[in-house]
């Protein structure tokens, strides 16, 4: 098992942990990865990965308009909006 770089994982997942949490999660994750490493004992050469439990292709639907954008309704649950736009901190100075 390779060392787990919690700081890197937190950056990828956009999470922040304090020092105590980092230590605890590091220990937990090491144990979780050690547990899942049992998988490596089984030879899976040539086995097709199963992404979806029930066979079948995704169906296509007729090219008809069935939904309309109801911006006001969807934005009514947003934390901060103005003039139909979602507000975030300034990105470009």
């Amino acid at each position: 098992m390779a060392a787990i770089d919690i700081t890197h994982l937190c950056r990828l997942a956009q999470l922040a942990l304090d020092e105590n949490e980092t230590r605890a999660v590091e220990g937990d994750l090491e144990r979780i990865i050690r547990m899942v490493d049992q998988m490596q004992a089984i030879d899976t050469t040539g086995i097709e990965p199963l992404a979806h439990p029930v066979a079948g292709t995704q169906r296509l639907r007729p090219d008809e308009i069935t939904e309309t954008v109801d911006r006001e309704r969807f934005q009514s649950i947003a934390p901060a909006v103005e003039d139909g736009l979602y507000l975030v901190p300034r990105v470009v100075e």
Partner: protein
Amino acid sequence: MSTPDAFAPIAELARGLRARAFSSRELTRYFLDRISRYDGALNSFISVTEARALAQADAADRRLQEGQVTALTGIPIAHKDLFCTAGVATTCGSRMLERFVAPYDATVVARLDAAGAVTLGKTNMDEFAMGSSNENSYFGAVGNPWNPALVPGGSSGGSAAAVAAGLTPVATGTDTGGSIRQPAAFCGLSGIKPTYGRISRYGMVAFASSLDQAGVFGHGVDDLALMLAFMSGFDPRDSTSSEQPDAWLAGAANSPVGVPERAPVIGLPREYFDGLRVGGAALDAARRSLEAAGCQFREIRLPHSAMAIPAYYIIAGAEASTNLSRYDGVRFGHRCENPKNLEDLYRRSRTEGFGMEVKRRILTGTYALSVGYFDAYYVKAQQLRRLIQNDFLAAFAEVDVILTPTAPGVAFPKGDLTDDPIAMYQQDIFTVPASLAGLPALSLPCGFHEGLPLGLQLIGPHFGERALLETGALYQRDTDWHRRHPEGFAA
């Protein structure tokens, strides 16, 4: 009004409504009163929607007057707080969604509303359905009605506790790796997770999309089948919804589940019984009861069973880390105060909004999907998922259904496993394989260990709900475990 029985099957309550023994408003009031009387000690509801319930009950009473009824008209139910309900908060047990009110109804909610059911409220759950004890809820742990110091199981622990205490006749749940079956076992209930694709996932807050499936808790299999008759069926709004019709299941709305025409051949997988410490005697007794009813038993092998927990925690973690990336503090959900910049907005909103177990799962999934580990973990887990499914497909060439324990033990004390995620994950050891394979599975009460309920699990082939429910009906015809209720919740 004659007093209803809080533990009665739906069909009996429906007869009471049609015979005017009580109105839907009286029946709804009766369960609302039970919730206010008993739920303080259990915490099984996150929100109780009294005004809405009484309005639905009045509408049901009008339809009863007009004779325009379904098998659910006027019957109180509750929804796991993971199904979106327009106008009512859907928290998913998380601070992230504490104030989230969905702008639309989940298909399950819409269908049950249309059938005339009355929604009493939304039930407690592990945050984002991640947990096996309901202790990961932002809204507090739930007590098991058989002993409130013990957990009800999870993640649908609130729904299980509410039905077991007679606070609602039935409740919806969802099951990703055992979240209906394990709490059903811990609370002495019947609970079913149908085939993946049987019930629309539209409007269910996503955890692991290739595994999540809606289902239901009740006392006996008749109520499960009746609810499934309304909940299941094709939905164009869910791209994984099955188009396979089931006339038998649709008919279960109006007639009780019969016993099978031909007694089924039942497989006992050795991997599930080797080393079982609790419940062996109850499972032996269940086997004898089914044998007396004509069933044949055959030992079978599911050789990759031990790989199910490792594969599951990679696949579910990977899918969760992807699904939960949508929570960014911008469009809906929790947003931190005074973000300094965009990065700070994302990071603090997520850090404040998610609890520890959710963070652990996101980080596990992030690890499995990150550069250099993708093939070793994610692809490997999907290959094992194939082998696990192949094990089941081979077994179903020999047997009609498979019987196993539902959980490795009975309900445990709150706090016992909270510091040990690996031990907590082992709770799912018998339920996760059917989830990975997308198979329907049913948990039925089958006895007690030191005063606490035990469950047996029946697993069927894809779209084999009929075989499961009829085998369950055969078992419940000859046993009365599903009619045992915890003390202290009398009318």
